[in-house]
């Protein structure tokens, strides 16, 4: 498909509806530190699960598949991510001790991870993406690629990594969503997916795939990108059911 230069994805071990051969939710990102030579006031040694999932998908796209064009400088590489409700759990995890014990219980290590924007910023650091990097959220699947298209056509970047993360936890929002989908026979499938787009990409090339939920499970904001990948490879990625 025109304008789609590559894709990458990741899912946690044991996601029953995604694969028989799980891959790429790997240890390095769980012990992630900023690149050498920088001088952080403190080191972030552990990233939370949704960020690890997201970084793993980008790792698949950039390092494993080598999709980023070498002639595109870091300053012209943009990033746009839809994290859906993946970070609500971290907001609760940060706020619960504050609500019960007061502001002194606030964790300076956890606070930077409570916003969707951290998914964009940490990916920019990890993969040296110096163009625009932002998180978006919308109620329809086109929000992400619409924004990526704006960045490309507006001349802010030559390529944009458009990605999404679906991560559910024990929060009631996640449980309520899982129950809604389970009632239709669709299990929840945590995953992250990223596609690399350039200016040739047309938003209207994005079409829904009605079989996706049954094929993959509920992948949340990743769904339109999975549909895109399925159009590139009708058989899907190798481990599609």
């Amino acid at each position, binding site marked *: 498909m025109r304008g789609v230069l590559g894709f990458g994805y990741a899912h946690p071990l044991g996601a029953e509806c995604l694969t028989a051969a799980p891959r790429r939710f790997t240890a390095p990102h769980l012990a992630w530190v*900023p690149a050498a030579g920088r*001088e*952080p*006031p403190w080191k972030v040694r552990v990233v939370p699960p949704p960020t690890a999932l997201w970084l793993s998908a980008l790792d698949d796209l950039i390092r494993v598949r080598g999709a980023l064009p070498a002639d595109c400088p*870091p*300053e012209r590489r943009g*990033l746009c991510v839809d994290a859906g*409700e993946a970070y*609500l759990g971290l*907001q*609760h995890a*940060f*706020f*619960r001790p*504050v*609500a019960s014990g007061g*502001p002194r*219980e*606030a*964790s*300076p290590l956890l*606070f*930077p991870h*409570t*916003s*969707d*924007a*951290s998914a*964009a*910023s*940490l990916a*920019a*650091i990890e993969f*040296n*993406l*110096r*163009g*625009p*990097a*932002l*998180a*978006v*959220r*919308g*109620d*329809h699947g*086109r*929000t992400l690629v*619409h924004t990526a*298209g*704006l*960045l490309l*056509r*507006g*001349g*802010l970047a030559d390529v944009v990594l458009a990605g999404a993360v679906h991560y559910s936890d024990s929060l*009631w*929002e996640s*449980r*309520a969503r899982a129950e809604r989908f389970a009632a239709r026979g669709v299990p929840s499938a945590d995953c992250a997916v990223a596609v690399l787009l350039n200016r040739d990409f047309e938003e209207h090339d994005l079409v829904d795939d009605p079989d996706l939920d049954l094929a993959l499970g509920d992948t949340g904001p990743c769904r339109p990108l999975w549909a895109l990948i399925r159009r590139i490879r009708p058989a899907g990625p190798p481990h599609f059911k």
Partner: protein
Amino acid sequence: MNAPPIALLDAAYCLRPADSDAGWRRCRAALRPLPQPPGHVYSASILNGMTARQAVLREAEAPTVVPTDDAVATLRRFFGPAVPVTQVHSACTSGAVALGLAALTVRAQGGVAIAAAHEERSLFNTSGFAALQTLSRGRPRPFTRGRDGFRLAAGVGLAVVGRSADAAVTLTGFAMTNDAHHPTGPHREGDGLRRCIEACLADAGLEPGEVACLKFNAVGTPYSDAAEYKALRAVWGAQLPRLPGYALKPALGHLQGASGLVETVVAARYLQRGLVPPVARADLDDLEFGLGLAAVPRRLDYANVLLLFSGFGGQNACLLLERRV
């Protein structure tokens, strides 16, 4: 024939509302009727539209409360149930980015687009920024030797962006970059902000020497102010102290995700009236960096203003506003 320039057709903001709902209502009431339904609405805040108050309520009332995003629901009520609403999260540059995306939308598909931003001064944000030691113990004093951070504030803003041949203020440049350096701190040399300034000027088709005024980010933390000065110095060199500039955060407070939008609306009004706002005299006496600040309001017939915004995670955004003569 050239298309009319992209302009701020209308805008309103509300500082320190009783809550976001009250702020939204006041802003909407202040806007004139839209010339046409908006093609897109961009809504900015630093969280998922979830305030700390809601976090507690959700935890306590689960599962009887259906999760909804108040801001999105409110914006749909204002501008129509079918209008696409995109929430933008790029830390404290979110409001400026929402405005920039609205301008890009108008550039791509015509019509009008809305930029909206809101932020509450919640226990969530206050405790988080306090834990990072970024909150000032007294009055914020950006760019001074004794600076120690910012003061959080709440606010709501709405702006209508569209093409117009006779609007007073046009939005001619937009850029955003990431430092790709650190999860919270800025690049120590201001590399990302310098690139952002240069990209914004290129977007507007201006040379650095043609910029008439600067609206500093001026967040007041030791690292961020130093990085901002280095970025500005890299672009303007020895000319920098002679370039008039001002800061809004000491007066407005730091509106976090809404600061980009509200500060732009305020800057547009100063630009329209030919005014450069002052800083406190005591701050000038203790300035660490050579910048074009003044202790008294200056009446200046300036043609444009470059607005700088930076945020957590190395986020940078710049907007360039021009006054139509």
